Structure formats: C-alpha cells, structure tokens
C-alpha cells in the first residue's frame, strides 16, 4: 500500500519541486497550520448583545427553525411541554445526559416523561445542548461527548436544542476558537445545524424531514448559574 503513497507523493513532488525545492515550502505549511486567525468574517457577523440575538433568531427562523427565548434555565421543561402540546406530540422525550440539563425544571412538569441517554430509532423527540450558536446564519454548533451523543439531533423527528445565551457567537470562527481552547483535538463529531432536515430532490419541491428532524426547536436561555438568589453569580 505504501507503494501507492510513494508514487503519488513522488508525482506531486516532481510537479511542485520547481516552485521551491528548499525548506521554504515546509516553513510556509508550518506557518499556515499554526495560524488560526479568521480569513474574512462578514461584517454582518460582527454584532453584539441584543442585536446578535436578533440576528440569530431572524436567520434561524428564515430556515424554519422555531426559536423561543426564556427568562430562566428552569423554564425549559415547561416550554418543552407546551411546544409538544402545540404540535400534538406525546409528552415524552429523550434528553442528553449532560448534567447542565438537570436544572431544566423537570420537576415542574410531572406529566412529561424524560429519559436521559442517547436516542433510539423509536424516540420521537430528542433534546440536546448546544456548544454554541452562530448568529451569522442562525446555526447551532453541537459538539459530541459521552454526555451529548450525536444521534439525539438526528434520529428523532423532533429535535429540541438548548442554547445558553452566553454561548451565542457572531461567526463560526469564534465558536471554533472556543472549542480549540477546551481541547487540543476536536471531538469525534461537531455538527453545525442550520434548520431542520430538508430535501429538494423530488421535483425541486422543498420538503422538511428528509432523514434528520422534521422540526427544530431552539430554546435561548440564560445560563443556569445565573439563576437563584445571586443573579450575578460567577458563571
């Protein structure tokens, strides 16, 4: 097999050697790989605070994502129960085992049946937590981990994503930089999700729910740490 590699490499080197046979090429590559500045971020993405939230919401809604803003993290369960009722869905879901979601206020919704774990093919509704939201295009960034399995956002027909407002960035590069700070290597899967699944493969007719979710519901929430008696806690 390495014969194939050396043939390909040899062909490439021969073709490219004339450009700069020395260490210059290698140095150029090292420099490029070490540099992590964004190439060009559109002006649209450079918004802060409420304007950023507004842009995220507008872009997400333009691609059929439903967005709701909550006053506290503990309202998640209630907002979820209402959403399921509105769409005539059973009061049942599977939610990521991420400990942050423990504070979703489940106790306020005794009729809502919640399993924590990964989605099965039978699960109709899945809930997970976003690593980031990206205002530029109304995109969610989901980062895989044992407590945030990927399939929660792909197998069920309805996907609910909790997005803490402190994680809302302007552009993709900001979110990726945060991920780089946390881990030297990306996790197995990072999913950028912009709206529910769709296809236009049948006679150019836009249809939602091709393989992934038919519905995507985003809950914009304050951080759970910011709740309780000391609203300005060190989140």
């Amino acid at each position, binding site marked *: 097999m*390495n014969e*194939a590699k050396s*043939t*390909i*490499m040899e*062909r*490439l080197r021969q*073709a*490219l050697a004339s450009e700069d046979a020395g260490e210059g*090429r*290698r140095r*150029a*590559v090292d420099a*490029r*790989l070490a*540099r992590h*500045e964004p*190439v*060009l971020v*559109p*002006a649209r993405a450079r918004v802060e605070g409420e304007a950023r939230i507004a842009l995220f919401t507008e872009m997400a809604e333009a*691609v059929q994502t439903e967005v709701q803003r909550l006053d506290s993290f503990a309202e998640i369960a209630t907002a979820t129960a209402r959403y399921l009722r509105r769409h005539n869905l059973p009061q049942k879901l599977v939610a990521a085992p991420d400990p942050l979601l423990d504070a979703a206020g489940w106790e306020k919704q005794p009729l809502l049946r919640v399993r924590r774990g*990964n989605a099965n*093919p039978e699960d109709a509704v899945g809930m997970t937590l976003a690593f980031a939201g990206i205002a530029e*295009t*109304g995109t969610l960034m989901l980062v895989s981990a*044992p407590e945030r*399995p*990927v*399939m929660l956002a*792909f*197998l069920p027909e309805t996907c609910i994503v909790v997005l803490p407002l402190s994680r809302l960035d302007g552009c*993709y*590069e900001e979110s*990726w930089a945060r991920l780089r700070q946390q881990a030297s*290597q*990306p*996790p*197995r*899967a*990072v*999913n*950028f*999700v*912009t709206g529910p*699944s*769709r*296809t*236009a*493969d*049948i*006679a*150019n*007719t836009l*249809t939602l*729910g*091709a*393989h*992934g*979710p038919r519905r995507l519901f985003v809950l914009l929430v304050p951080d759970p740490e910011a709740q309780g008696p000391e609203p300005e806690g060190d989140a």
Partner: protein
Amino acid sequence: MSGATPVGFRDRAREALADPTLREALLSIRRGWPHARARAIARLPEFDALRDHGRAIKDHVLAHLDLYLERFERAVTASGGSVHWARDAAEARRLVLEICKRAGARTVTKSKSMIAEEIDLNAWLEAHGIVPVETDLGEYIIQLAGQRPSHLVGPAVHMTREEITELFARHHGTPPSERAEELVAEARRVLRQRYLEADVGITGANFLIAESGSVITVTNEGNAELTHGLPRTQIVVASIEKIVPTMEEAFTLLRLLARSATGQEFSTYTTVVTGPRRAEDLDGPEAFHVVLLDNGRSGMIGGTLRSMLRCIRCGACLNHCPVYLAVGGHAYGSVYVGPMGAVLSPVLYGIETARALPEASSFCGRCEEVCPVRIPLPALLRYWREEAWRRQLAPPAARWGMRLWRHLALRPGLYRIASGVVARVLGLLAGRRGALRRLPLAGGWTGSRDLPAPEGATFTSLYRKGVR
C-alpha cells in the same frame, strides 16, 4: 449505473433536445438555483472578496499538496483512524472492499460521494456480494432507476415527480404516493431500516482538514450523519485535492459553497468528524478509514489544468451553462458534467474518448463568472480543444452544432419542442458570430433554404433579458 462514456455525447445530446420531460426539468433548474444564488450573494457584500480568498486558499494548498497530505495522514492516525492511498480507481475499489470484508459487511450505507461514483464503487461492491444503499434521496432515486447522477448537487433533477412515484411504487411494493412529502416520508421509512442494518457507512468529503485530520461533510438531509454515526465502521472516500490547512480556511470555503450551489446561507448540516468514537462516547463508529484517491490528479498539478483542482463541486457552472441546460447531465456520459465535467472528463477517460465534451462549449463565459473559486473554465476548455487539435482528434465543433440544427429544422414537430433555449444553444454551438452559412457543410444547403441562424446574440444577453 449507466455504462455510457463521453463518446456518444452528440447522439445523446440530440435525443435530450427532443425530450420534453427533460426540457421541463432543466427549465426548473434555470428558474431556481441561479436566482437563489444571485439573491444570496446580494445579501453578502463580502462575497467577491471571499472568492478571492477561496481561490488563494486552494492555490496555496495545491502548491504544497504533498506536505499537507502528509500532515493530514499524521493527524488522522493520531486521532485513531487510518489513511489508505489509491493511485487509481481500481486500487481505491480494492481498498474499500478489503475494509468492508474485514468488517464482515453485508450491507453498506452511502452518503452522496462523487468519488464513489468516479470509481464506480456500487457495481464493484455488488459484484462482491455487498449491498450498497444510497441514502441521499436524489442518489437513492437514481440508484433505483439504475442511472448516473445528472447534476453535482441534485443527482435526480432530471426526473419528474410522476417518474419517482412510479419508481417507488415498483421498488417498495407500496401504493403509489403522489405528493412530494409522501414520497420523502416513504423513502425516510425505507432508508431508516437500512441505516440500522448497515455494517459500514461510506461517505465522501467536501473538505479534509490537515491540522486535525478531520473530514467535513455537507448535506441538507442529515444522511451523512446517520451514515457515519450508526454503523460500526466508517469509510471516507476522498480525492487528494480536498485538503485545506485549518478550520478557518474551511469556513471561508463553506461560506462560498452553499450560496453558490443552492443559494442557501449555509447548508443544513455541516459536520466535522475526527477519528472513531472516543472511549466513553455513546455513538459513532469504532473504526475510521480514509481512502485518498489520486486518479490522474497528481498529473494535473504541474500544468495548465492545476486550477481545475480548486473546484469545490458547487454546481454553479452547470446551473449557468447554456449547453448543460439544453442537454442535461446524462448526455455527457461522464461522472462529471457541465463545464467542470467537460474539463475533468478528458483527464479521467482520456481526450480521445472525451473530446466531444470540451467542444460543446459556447464560450459564453458564464461558468467562469459564477465559479466561487474563479476557475478559468473557458480557458481550460480551450486547452483541451487545442490538445485534441494537436493530436488531430477533433472534428470541427461547429459541424456538430450544424448537424444538430439541421436534424431539428427538418422535423418541425421536434423543432417546436426544442425551441427557446435550445435554439439559442444551437446558434452558439454553430459558432459565436453565428450564421450557419459560414459553416463548412452549410454552404449549399443554407443557400437554397435560407435558414436563419437560431440566434445571433450571446447567451448572457438573452439570459439577462429572461428570454424563454
């Protein structure tokens, strides 16, 4: 898979021109994607600057491709995956089959991959007792129909809803579904089962990230995620020029890709996968393989064709090409169609076999105008024409255009069907300044019949006027 080669282009083009169903489908491309693209670009003032960056990123990578490939391999290995190298299609097929056999695979799910098409992977797997199941809805449809993709982004754009209804009813043994939603729901049901049964998931790659050994897939359906997330083994088949240095560069190219392809701000799912599942993960494959394919690309690096390797497979050049929009994808008889296909096919099939494709160009320049990485497609087509000429291969392109024109002109019924865009294309194929009487064989014929050339104006001007 159709066994067609570019050799039969002229005959297939003639048939295509007389096919009213295909006309309708191609018209819907013309009315859809180019306008959606234009609207998306109007919303992003930085689009042209991004194109310059996109071109520069790709040029930098191509000039250092050997080094980036090494870094990519190292990073994949560090993440627990393995990289396999294939000089040509046969080697790539063998590698994929070996991995499938080692995994004890009986069925594999596939998410849209042009490289898998290029190496004709499905037929090979089937011949070795492994059932490949396409999961991209368009790919699934053409797999059932036994066809090739007719478009980079919409493999089944040439098919009507009625044809798909009939196809599904026949293959699924279910009562015919009429509406698009019902058809999508039906495919979803059938394919869900397939995902769960599959032993191996095969995907392509839109980009390979050298710094981390990551693979980026872009879909709207979510089928790539189910393909790499559910089976125990994942195989990525990708060509060597898909490399970009870091995620920052990938984001720049991603900002160009969806807007150029479908006019979306961002595709629904852009997923970055790196290696197999981690120890505590609840999902993801246990084995992660990347098969890197050369298949003639290393030979393009040193010459005129290098810039073609910048291509990010957005399909914009197809959507704006008067020839593609007149004859559709299948006429090309190649995996790659439209202007980009007319440049790439001679590399893959040899100029002897594919010479008709670079000839079938009007040189209107729309493809280069819309290409997000500014590939000089008309110049590359001209390169192939000259190459064919040098090797004494090419009959004058104009002759073909004229024959086609005469064929239609002598059949009034056909001509009426094929009027509109087709007539203009024929005019263009007949030569830019257009009059048929200037063509080699046309002299005596047009002298007595005095047929006007189909159109004198360029496609661009007609297109802008919105002439039907």
